[in-house]
């Protein structure tokens, strides 16, 4: 069987995504790669703010960041605040397996979609509620975006230079990690419902700040046991001297890392330091961190990136270049692993839209990328008339009333 004809793990699963911007929409997008049918619900007047934020609306196609977040979906509009929308939305819930949203916790109940109501409409429905701080506790009503998760969850504190401020990156780490945890939770809830005798859906309550807090495994226990906070350490790592990032002769950056005896041996061998008693035991090297850094920096400064890569491969030492989007786009390994896909532009531009491929590679149920982000409301007729049995005249009325 070819990839095209093989089955997909989530074929026949329908997810309604009422998310906006990043964490919510990315959650369902990850599952769409593996065959789930995702319907993205947007406000008819404003659309998902991500369309504007990533530079599409009114600015030409400067940076279509929303395509990777919303690929494979069907896009419908629905003004959730209107009474008629409630009815339509509940109808949609009866034919769906899961719903995701990432508003503050009170928003869905205010629209009439509290868990008890949704559960009574469709007992098999899984509700993935991705709020900022979770749906309980004293901070539940506060707003949070990705950076707020990075701040609150403890990550910004351990990122950045030792003598500099707590630091955020240029990438939405907090949001996207939340979406990975959300998607994994939905798969778990489906497994329990359909395989483990659960029979029913459940409520998944996950705060944006929570996956990162959980992910930084060392932070709580190291403080609890030693009374010391894990702290930021720039290019290096507090727990070992054998991690650093250095600049090469041709002005690229290369990051190396060694955490086991084997890896340390290979690193020292690549850097020509196997016999150097200043650095060739963990204890000695830990005493001379700055000296080791300077020695490593000098080694890289004398070599091009290609030379450094070759030496590291020869000695089986662990390290990699710092890659930009541009570097990744041109990289032969990325291409060989099918990590780039090219899709036609649903808005008609001749230039195709390029984005990341499918991770991971399943031998029996390979994922697929079907489409880039559809225009606002492009699938209204398909979903309302085709799936929910609304007539074309009724749909026209709903659109005229601003409901759809």
């Amino acid at each position, binding site marked *: 069987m070819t990839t095209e004809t093989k*089955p997909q793990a989530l074929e026949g699963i329908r997810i309604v995504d009422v998310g906006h911007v990043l964490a919510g929409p990315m959650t369902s997008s990850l599952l769409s790669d593996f065959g789930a049918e995702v319907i993205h619900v947007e406000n008819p007047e404003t659309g998902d703010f991500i369309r504007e934020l990533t530079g599409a609306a009114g600015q030409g196609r400067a940076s279509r960041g929303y395509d990777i977040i919303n690929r494979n979906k069907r896009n419908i509009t629905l003004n959730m605040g209107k009474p008629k929308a409630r009815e339509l939305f509940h109808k949609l819930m009866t034919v769906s397996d899961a719903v995701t949203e990432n508003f503050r916790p009170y928003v869905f109940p205010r629209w009439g979609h509290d868990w008890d109501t949704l559960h009574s409409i469709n007992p098999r429905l899984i509700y993935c509620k991705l709020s900022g701080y979770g749906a309980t506790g004293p901070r539940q009503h506060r707003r949070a975006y990705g950076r*707020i998760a990075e701040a609150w969850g403890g990550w910004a504190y351990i990122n950045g230079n030792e003598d500099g401020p707590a630091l955020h990156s240029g990438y939405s780490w907090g949001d996207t990690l939340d979406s990975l945890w959300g998607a994994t939770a939905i798969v778990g809830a489906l497994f329990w419902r359909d395989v483990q005798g659960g029979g029913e859906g459940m409520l998944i309550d996950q705060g944006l*700040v929570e996956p990162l807090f959980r992910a930084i495994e060392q932070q709580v226990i190291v403080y609890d046991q030693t009374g010391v906070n894990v702290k930021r350490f720039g290019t290096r790592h507090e727990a070992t001297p054998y991690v650093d990032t250095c600049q090469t002769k041709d002005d690229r950056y290369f990051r190396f890392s060694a955490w086991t005896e084997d890896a340390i041996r290979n690193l020292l061998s690549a850097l020509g330091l196997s016999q150097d008693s200043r650095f060739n035991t963990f204890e000695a090297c830990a005493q001379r961190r700055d000296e080791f850094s300077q020695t490593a920096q000098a080694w890289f400064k004398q070599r091009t990136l290609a030379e450094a890569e070759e030496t590291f491969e020869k000695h089986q030492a662990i390290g990699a270049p710092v890659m930009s989007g541009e570097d990744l786009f041109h990289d032969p390994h990325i291409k060989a*692993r099918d990590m780039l896909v090219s899709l036609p532009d649903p808005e008609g531009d001749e230039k195709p839209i390029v984005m990341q491929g499918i991770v991971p590679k399943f031998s029996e149920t390979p994922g697929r990328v079907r489409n880039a982000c559809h225009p606002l409301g492009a699938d209204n007729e398909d979903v309302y008339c085709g799936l929910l049995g609304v007539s074309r005249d009724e749909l026209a009325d709903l659109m005229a009333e601003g409901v759809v």
Partner: protein
Amino acid sequence: MPQPKQQIFEGVRVLDLVSRESGATIAGAYLADFGADVIKIDKPGEPGPALDAHYVKNGIDLQYKVKGRNKRHITLDLSKPQGVDLFHKLVADSDVVVENLGLGVMEGWGHDWETLRSLNPRLIFVRLSDYGQDGPYKNRRLDGFAGDAFAGFCQVDGERDATPVDSQMDMAGHVAGMWAAMSIGLALYWRDARGGVGQVVDMALYEPLYRLIQTNITPYTSSGKADMRYGNRRDNGIPWVDSHETKDGRHYSYSGATRATYRDTQLAMGMFRDPRFKDLPTAFVNREAFHDYAAAWTKERTIEEVDEAFFAFEGASAPCNNAEDLINDPHELAREHIVTVDDPDLGPVRMQGLVPKFSRTPGKVRWAGEQPGTRNAEVYGELLGLTAKELDELRAADVI
């Protein structure tokens, strides 16, 4: 009707061969948090002494207490003939094998996919490797910290025009581990709910993080502009997404990225009536003045005062916490995020609770990460019926 299972992955057995130092250990830990029987297999005599001095207490690797929690720890040398035999017996009785031993290592020991599949056609075999099972870099070496560089993360982490930095957590490893957990869930679902069979899952360590970085590929290919580092500011220099130091030496982050939160950010800092910032275009022109005002405003206030002001106007913002801030925080305590586990090595230890909250199947932290081989007698006795005498012989032969 049989009773529903109490936990999501109850009855699912996972053989976990992911090395202790890797952040990808979260794969087994996540599944075990929610009920899977995860058997972590260490090679006898490994790991050697814990090397990361800062995270060690009395020779105990503290971080592993979290990475290895809820897993049953056994030892087994998968390369010795007797070990091969024992491993194959375990495989026959398991649902999942997850490994990151390196390309060709499993094959070299007789644990290739064809053999494992013939023993158990329902097996899900997750191959987590440095660069994947094929491609021109397959013989290069990578771990999570170098993986952050290759995935494209370090390129956007650091101060403007300065060397790229990285965080102190194994991000690429963690994301790969969670991706493996999601993939295992998908493969189990297809196998058991859709009448499927077992399968192989091939994943490079850096690929999941590369896949998550939504700013990597499409913005570059559509605009031609390469991604870069901009410190706590955004690439276009907008000052309403930023972080500043408080009077008491802490840091506070706010994100006024939307029209509403931009206004709330201004209101919180009392700058709404200032004509230099009267609307977004004007504020953008005066962005350095905005930045300086915000930095000075924050510096005059304690973290509590700043947080209160932002809360009053519903700003999207938070203090940059460390463990000390979090461990006694009322919100974290209300969410049951700090749990205490009784550990034979350390006594009571505090660590993170369960994320997320599943209404029907809440999960449980049962024990902390164990020493290698802690459950040899239990696991080999229960699953393979081995006696104490047989275990002694295997131990003497360095098989377990």
